């Protein structure tokens, strides 16, 4: 299933702690957060990391959630994640703690365009 990156399964409750234990700013490069709509109101969210300077597989934390869940924000661990979180909140309509909506979409555009319904 996962062809060229490693996946660490986690859960919504644990994810923040997992990333906190894992992330070392001088060693790992935070890439982005991505969500995949699995259908039926379910969504898979992945946090991607890669090592600096070493040819190695990227690492992803994976969490399955639903659209109703509140997803913890990691801005206090990785300050640059606010943009990725804002994007997910806009394009998928996810409830992410403290994420600002309306950064990527205009007020008159359809809500959560990447969701399949």
């Amino acid at each position, binding site marked *: 299933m996962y062809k060229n990156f490693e996946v660490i399964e986690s859960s919504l409750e644990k994810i923040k702690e997992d990333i906190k234990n894992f992330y070392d700013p001088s060693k790992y490069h935070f890439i*982005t957060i991505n969500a*995949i709509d699995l259908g039926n109101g379910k969504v898979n969210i*992945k946090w991607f990391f890669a*090592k600096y300077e070493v*040819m*190695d597989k990227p690492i992803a934390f994976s969490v399955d959630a639903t659209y109703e869940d509140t997803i913890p924000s990691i801005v206090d661990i990785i300050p640059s994640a606010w943009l*990725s979180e804002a994007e997910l909140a806009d394009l998928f309509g996810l409830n992410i703690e403290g994420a600002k909506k309306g950064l990527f979409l205009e007020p008159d555009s359809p809500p959560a365009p990447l969701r399949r319904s």
Partner: protein
Amino acid sequence: MENKMIVPFGSQHITLLEPVRFIFETENEKIVNVDVDVGYVHRGIEKACQTKLNYKQVAYIIPRICGLCAMSHALAYITAVEKILEFDPPKKAKYLRVLVHELDRIHSHLFAMAHVAEAAGYENLVMHLFRDRELAMECLEILTGNRVQYDYGCIGGVNRDLTPEVEKILRKKLKKLEDRIHWFKDLYMNDYTLSLRWKGIGVISKEMAEKYNAAGPVARASGVRTDARAEFDALPYRDLGFEMIVYKDGDIYSRNLVRLDEIFVSLRIIWNILDGLPEGNYKEEVKGLPKGESVCRWEAPRGELFMHVRGDGKQILTRVRVKTPTFSNIPVLRELFVGANYADVPAIITSFDPCMSCTAR
């Protein structure tokens, strides 16, 4: 509001190539607070790639995200899909991909440098840089058939072979370009007004670059050793004399020098490819439907490009995610502005070489 002045910068501004809006609160031309809005050009390309187009057509739509790094987008997507299909492209195709990608990087870097010069009000340098960028553009035009949208890579290899007559023209033009780049390097190193304007301005320390996960030339100018060409095994960069350019100062000046030196590295890689192009097919038939998930990290001219592709065994992919370099650099850009002088804002923004149509997609 005692002494504060609110200065909107964008969404249309003369130094901005693409719409992004910053709202600065300034005090005596010193910035105390910033607000940013990036989504002016959201075109829903990801949505189109996931609903309407089949996975082979997406390879021609993805490069339309951005004109300047079209080749990076296309090749990153193609590599990601090839990883899902577990297909290894022929060696010659890989080399030709590197060739076009590096030419793309050269013209993009020259473009970025020209814009930094433009923001500093150095009109003559802009004209010279743009004129010499034309050489790289002509090379690409003759090699791929278009000046901006190359459509060179395809799933399975590349679309065109490098014919000997094209190679001859490439060599001639690149020789000329190399001389010009040496001239520019000399100019950049010795120009007094440039150093006055750029040295020590917009400094990103190594810690800051790591904290905010900057990417590409911006990070490398701050001393962070990161380059997706060395961190992801998509193309044979190791055989081609690739070298990571790292500067320590982290100001606008060193960002320019990183770009300038990377042009030299790119040129060296291109010479190596032209001298030692392997024999064989440049394209192979790929069969099967993508099933699985893969990622691709790609060093676009502006930094790390990230593709996340998931297919569920259908013609149409389930998810295509493009994380563009500017997307990574926006957070550090925002932090950098606080405390900067308003007069330096255009230079700082352009030295990041932002590409908003990439960011919003």
